[in-house]
C-alpha cells in the first residue's frame, strides 16, 4: 500500500505544480510506481508542465462521478513506464468534488501505486480541503518572502490541527546572492519562524522556465540546479539520509568558510 502526499502552500504561484511534477518524475526515475493527481479543478496545469496535455480524455471529475474508470482516466507519462497523471477537470469548479470522494479515490490509487502526489490549488477553501482529505503527509512549499511565509504558517496551522499530515517544508526559489547580501531570508530564518521539519531547498533556476516551456520536468536535465535539488528531495522521501543541497554562488565558498571559522551564522 502506497503513501499519499499533498503538495500545498496557501499562497499561489510559489511552485506547487513544479514541485509535484519534479518529485513525481524523480521518484519514477528511481523505480517507484507514481501517480500524480491535479486537484486544481478549473485551473489545470500539471498536464502542461508534464507535457501530457494532448493525451487527456477523461479527468478527475469524470472518475469521481462514475463517468469513467480510473484506469481509463490515468495518462501514462511519455518518459517513464511507471508514472501516471490524473488530470483535473477544466470546465468545472472545486465544488464538483467532495472530501469524501477524494478520500476514496486516493485510497483506491494507493492500492496500485507506491506514491500518490496531490497537487493542491492555492487557498484554504474547498479545493484545499479536497486535496488534503485523502493524503497521509503534506509538503508545504514556500518562497523566502513575507507573504509566502505568512500563508505557509496558516496552512501549517490548519494541517497541524488535524494531527495527521506531519507537514514538512520545501523552500523554493532561494537566490544565494540575495541571501548573502542579507536581502533574502535564508533556510535557518524560515525554519525558525515556521518551526517545522525541512525537507528540501530548491534554488531559483532559469531552467525551470525552459523545462516548463518544453513540458519536461527539470529533474530530467543533469545540468539544472533545481533538478538536482528535486532529485535529492525525492531520495529523502524514500528514506535516504542525503544532505540538503548546498545553495551557494559559484566560487564564493571562501567567505562562507571564513564566517564559519569565526563562528558567525550566515
Amino acid at each position, binding site marked *: 500500500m502506497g503513501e499519499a502526499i499533498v503538495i500545498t502552500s496557501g499562497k499561489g504561484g510559489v511552485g506547487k505544480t513544479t514541485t509535484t511534477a519534479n518529485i513525481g518524475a524523480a521518484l519514477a526515475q528511481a523505480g517507484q510506481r507514481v501517480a500524480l493527481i491535479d486537484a486544481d479543478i478549473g485551473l489545470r496545469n500539471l498536464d502542461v508542465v508534464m507535457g501530457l496535455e494532448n493525451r487527456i480524455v477523461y479527468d478527475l471529475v469524470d472518475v469521481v462521478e462514475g463517468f469513467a474508470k480510473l484506469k481509463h482516466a490515468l495518462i501514462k507519462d511519455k518518459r517513464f513506464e511507471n508514472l501516471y497523471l490524473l488530470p483535473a477537470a477544466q470546465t468545472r469548479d472545486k465544488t464538483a468534488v467532495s472530501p469524501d470522494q477524494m478520500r476514496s479515490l486516493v485510497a483506491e490509487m494507493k492500492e496500485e501505486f507506491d506514491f500518490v502526489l496531490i497537487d493542491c490549488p492555492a487557498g484554504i477553501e474547498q479545493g484545499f480541503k479536497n486535496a488534503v482529505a485523502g493524503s497521509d503527509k503534506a509538503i508545504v512549499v514556500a518562497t523566502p*518572502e*513575507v507573504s509566502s*511565509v*505568512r500563508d505557509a*504558517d*496558516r496552512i501549517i*496551522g490548519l494541517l497541524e490541527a488535524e494531527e495527521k499530515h506531519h507537514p514538512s517544508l520545501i523552500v523554493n526559489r532561494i537566490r544565494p546572492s540575495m*541571501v*548573502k*547580501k*542579507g*536581502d*533574502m*531570508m*535564508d533556510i535557518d*530564518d524560515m525554519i525558525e*519562524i515556521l518551526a517545522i521539519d525541512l525537507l528540501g531547498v530548491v534554488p531559483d533556476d532559469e531552467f525551470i522556465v525552459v523545462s516548463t516551456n518544453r513540458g519536461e520536468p527539470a529533474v530530467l536535465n543533469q545540468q539544472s540546479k533545481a533538478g538536482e535539488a528535486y532529485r535529492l528531495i525525492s531520495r529523502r522521501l524514500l528514506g535516504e539520509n542525503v544532505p540538503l543541497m548546498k545553495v551557494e554562488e559559484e566560487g564564493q565558498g571562501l*567567505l562562507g568558510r*571564513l*564566517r564559519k571559522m*569565526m563562528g*558567525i551564522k550566515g
Partner: protein
Amino acid sequence: MFDLFARVFGREDASKEVAKERLRLVLVHDRSSLSPQALESLKNDLLQVISQYLDIDDQGFRVDFSRHDDAMALVANIPIKKKASRNL
C-alpha cells in the same frame, strides 16, 4: 573594506531582518486567532479594571503582542498619571 566588514558580520539594516521582524509580529496575531476587534475590547476591559485601582493615562495606554525568544507575550504599557496633590 567597510563593505567586507559589513558583509562578514551581517548588516543590521539588511532587508531580511526587516522581513523577519514584520513576520514575527504578523504571525503572533495570526496564530493567536484574536481579531483586531477582540484585541480592542480586551484593551478596553483592561483599562476599565485597572482604572479602579490606579489613575492611568489612557492616551499612552498600549497593549500589544510581542515575542520574547520562543514565547509569545501580551505586553501592556500603562502609564500612571502623577497625583495632582504631589504636583505642586
